[in-house]
């Protein structure tokens, strides 16, 4: 599904990604974790074409990213911060995205119901809470039933009910052989949702593989502790 090879990104003097190579299988839920500033968001933005790699190649669904935008037809993205034009309503935000695509938004109604947004969409986005705006982002990301769903810190600001619905949404995606890429700092969420984990520190991949393998390697049962153990070993 996603092949990243020798990806390197430099911002002026700061190197955000060092020679990153990674393969993500179709139908998997992969968590990307790492400290703040480790390169998680840069990696995701490279996949989305928002950041131009200094060198290296990215292939998504067989298409090599070369500046064209068509490959994004199969991607849904939930950003870390959900900000919209404040004087437009939720419905208008959805209409903007729908106007940019040719195919019908098959899951729009289902997702609006799932995230309980029906009565919120007529309001201007300035009147919506952070959590509600985040749910609106999820509708935008999921309404075209994308083959690849990328979520950047999706659980931040969500109430417990929406949190459960989000996890169910991700599980449904996996069941339908869709690929999910998620960054989070909440290890328990990741333990629950993901099959694979990628640990990035200082722009370098320190571990990439199944969560169970990480636990096996470190001899820990909880992902949180397993990650801490791995980082301790790296530091030693």
């Amino acid at each position, binding site marked *: 599904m996603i092949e990243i090879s020798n990806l390197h990104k430099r*911002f002026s003097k700061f190197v955000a990604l060092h020679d990153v190579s990674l393969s993500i299988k179709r139908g998997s839920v992969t968590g990307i974790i790492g400290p703040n500033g480790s390169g998680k968001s840069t990696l995701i*933005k490279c996949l*989305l*074409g*928002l*950041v*131009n790699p200094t060198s290296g190649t990215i292939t998504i669904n067989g298409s090599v990213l070369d500046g064209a*935008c*068509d*490959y*994004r*037809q199969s*991607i849904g*993205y939930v*950003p870390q*911060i*959900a*900000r*919209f*034009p*404040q*004087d*437009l309503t939720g419905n*208008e935000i959805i*209409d*903007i*995205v729908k*106007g*940019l*695509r040719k195919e019908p938004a098959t899951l729009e109604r289902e997702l609006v119901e799932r995230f309980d947004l029906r009565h919120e969409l007529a309001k*201007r986005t300035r009147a919506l809470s952070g959590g509600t705006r985040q749910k609106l*982002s999820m509708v*935008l990301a999921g309404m075209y039933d994308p083959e690849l769903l990328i979520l950047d810190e999706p659980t931040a600001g969500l109430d417990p009910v929406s949190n459960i619905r989000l996890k169910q949404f991700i599980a449904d995606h996996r069941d339908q052989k869709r690929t999910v890429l998620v960054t989070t700092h909440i290890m328990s969420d990741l333990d629950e949702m993901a099959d694979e984990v990628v640990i990035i520190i200082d722009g370098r991949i320190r571990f990439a593989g199944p969560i169970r393998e990480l636990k096996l390697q470190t001899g820990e049962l909880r992902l949180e502790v397993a990650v801490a153990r791995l980082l301790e070993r790296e530091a030693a």
Partner: protein
Amino acid sequence: MRLSLHIGWYAIRDVARNRWGLLYTAFFLVVTVGLFQLQAQSAKVAVSLMSICLFLIPLVSSLFGTIYFYNSREFVELVLTQPVNRRTVYFGMFCGLGASLVAGFILGVGLPYLFFMTISQEQLLSLLLLLAVGSFLTVIFLAISFLLATILDDRGKGLAAILGVWLFTALVYDGLVMLATMAFSDYPLETPLLIAVVTNPIDLARVTLLVQTDWAALMGYTGAVFNRFFGTSLGVSIAVVALCLWIVTPVLIGLRQFRHKDL
């Protein structure tokens, strides 16, 4: 183009409900009505209005454009994760915001003008000229603000830069030209002054009005030279072409920057 118009249409809807956008229109409405109450002759109202427009439109367009661009950053990123190219998004936002500000200005000035002015061909022409020049200035300074906001990631630096541009073009520039004129008064200065006019959009806007009207109150030194040397029709042609270039150039550079920018 269809997608740019789609994005632009929603930018228009956003600005039409924005309190600052509404305040901008209301300001011109109140000022124009107020001027008509104070001065019975629409020619004098036009002169006062033009002074306000030359000063205020660049400032408001610059600030509004810069703030709107920075505030839309996260949403622009979200839109760019759709199968749409960057040129479309940038151009759509620019057109939408430009159309909103121009409409706000035209409504604010045009409505009371039409209501109060004495109907004559001359008056109507002066109104149309006022609206056209104001619209040009709106779009020019919006284009410059988008360019600077694209280049400078930091909001504070972006705002400082656009305020610097406004301060220079609206206030400092003519003073420098005047000083240079005095310092080199023994030399033939027509050509350098013509170049000086073309390189400042506010002076260009002023000159465009001068060559069409007798609004002597607006006569800066540079405008007088331009008028004297080129006469009416040629002067207007050159000024209009230069005004268009002042729109096209920052838009093209901004588009180029935006296409290669890391978001």
